[in-house]
Structures are given as structure tokens and as C-alpha cells.
């Protein structure tokens, strides 16, 4: 079993609820930590541009930093809504998914619940996460983002 390396960003919504988005990546070494921190920062920025909530906290092995406790101003920023990100292992093509709270609905394809993959903020997010994240099954295997969809409760 390969070692597990993972991190998360915690998102704060309008009603001051919190929800995390988590991801896997390769092992951190003295040789790659500078590059890792750059990619981690890029991913934080990229997520911030595709959601409406506040990135409240980030975490990876050895880092647990509160970034902000200020809730977002938009009342529609709610953790009950998510980006559902579907991705695959770049080699195995095995499919996985994860969620990001408080999606920015301005990034949707009009008349759908699909993210506009041609939106520059979405493209930057895809670039940032594909540069950093690895398959949960193999921390040396890269990933391909296949799509992003807004999901929530439908009672």
C-alpha cells in the first residue's frame, strides 16, 4: 500500500457553516517542498476563484493554518451546494470524485448545472489541481479532471 499524502481547504459559507474539500498528492521531500508549496498556493487561489465562500483554513501534513474566520457577504454562499469534481487516474483511467463547497454559479453553463470548462477561472483551477493532485490509489499517478457539476439538495 502506497503512503497517503493529502490536504484540504475548509470553506466557510454565509451562515458560518464549514465544509472541506480534500485531495491527494505525492510525498513531500526536502527536494520538492518548494515546488509543492507553490502548487498548493496556486490551488488555493484557483479554488478561491470558483467558489463564493471564504477559504477558512488549509491543511496538509505538517500544516494546519486558520486563514480567515470572516464569512462571505453573499447570502447564496452555502455549503449545502458543492462543485462535484469528477476525475480519473491519468494512467489507470480509474474514476474518482471530490467536492468543493459554495460553488460560484456564475461559472455554470447557462441553463445547466455543469461548470463552463472554457471559463478562464475554471481552466486555471483545472491547471492548478492537475499540477498538484495525485490518484488516491497511487501517489505517483497524475490525474485528469473530467468535469465539474453543481450539486445540492433537491427535497
Amino acid at each position, binding site marked *: 500500500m502506497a503512503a497517503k499524502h493529502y490536504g484540504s481547504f475548509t470553506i466557510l459559507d454565509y451562515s458560518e457553516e464549514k465544509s472541506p474539500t480534500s485531495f491527494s498528492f505525492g510525498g513531500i521531500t526536502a527536494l520538492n517542498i518548494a515546488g509543492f508549496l*507553490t502548487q498548493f*498556493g*496556486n490551488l488555493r*487561489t*484557483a479554488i478561491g*476563484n470558483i467558489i463564493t465562500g471564504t477559504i477558512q483554513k488549509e491543511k496538509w501534513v505538517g500544516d494546519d493554518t486558520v486563514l480567515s474566520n470572516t464569512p462571505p457577504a453573499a447570502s447564496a454562499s452555502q455549503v449545502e451546494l458543492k462543485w462535484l469534481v469528477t476525475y480519473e487516474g*491519468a494512467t489507470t483511467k480509474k474514476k474518482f470524485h471530490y467536492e468543493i463547497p459554495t460553488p460560484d454559479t456564475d461559472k455554470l453553463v447557462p441553463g445547466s448545472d455543469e461548470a463552463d*470548462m*472554457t471559463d*478562464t*477561472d475554471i*481552466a*486555471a483551477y*483545472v*491547471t*492548478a489541481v*492537475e*499540477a498538484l493532485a495525485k490518484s488516491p490509489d497511487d501517489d505517483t499517478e497524475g490525474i*485528469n*479532471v473530467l468535469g465539474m457539476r453543481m450539486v445540492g439538495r433537491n427535497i
Partner: protein
Amino acid sequence: MELLLSVLPADGSWITFDQFKAQAQAVGARIDLWRRGKQQGLLETRLPDGYTSASQLEIRKVV
């Protein structure tokens, strides 16, 4: 895909993603195919270290 790739510099130099979208739109290319092109290794995207705006996203053809 060929039409989309045709809007990228032939020498593999980087242009911004926003420039790429504008040029692709001008020739009627399907911009969404950039994902497939990246997965197939035909093009690549990058962000500068410590980037602050998605307008800094760049794309190039792999030559």
C-alpha cells in the same frame, strides 16, 4: 481539434488563455476541446508561481 490547435503559435510559445479563447472564437473553433487536447498531450497550460489572477493562465501547443 486541428482548428483549435491552429490558433496556437506554431513554434510552441505561450499565449494567455484569454487570447487563445478570443482567437478560437474568431475562427469558430470549439474552445471546450482544450481539455481533450491537454489529456492527449497536444497542448499544455501553466500558471506562474504565486499567481493572483486567472488572466495569467497560459497555454501552448506541444511541438
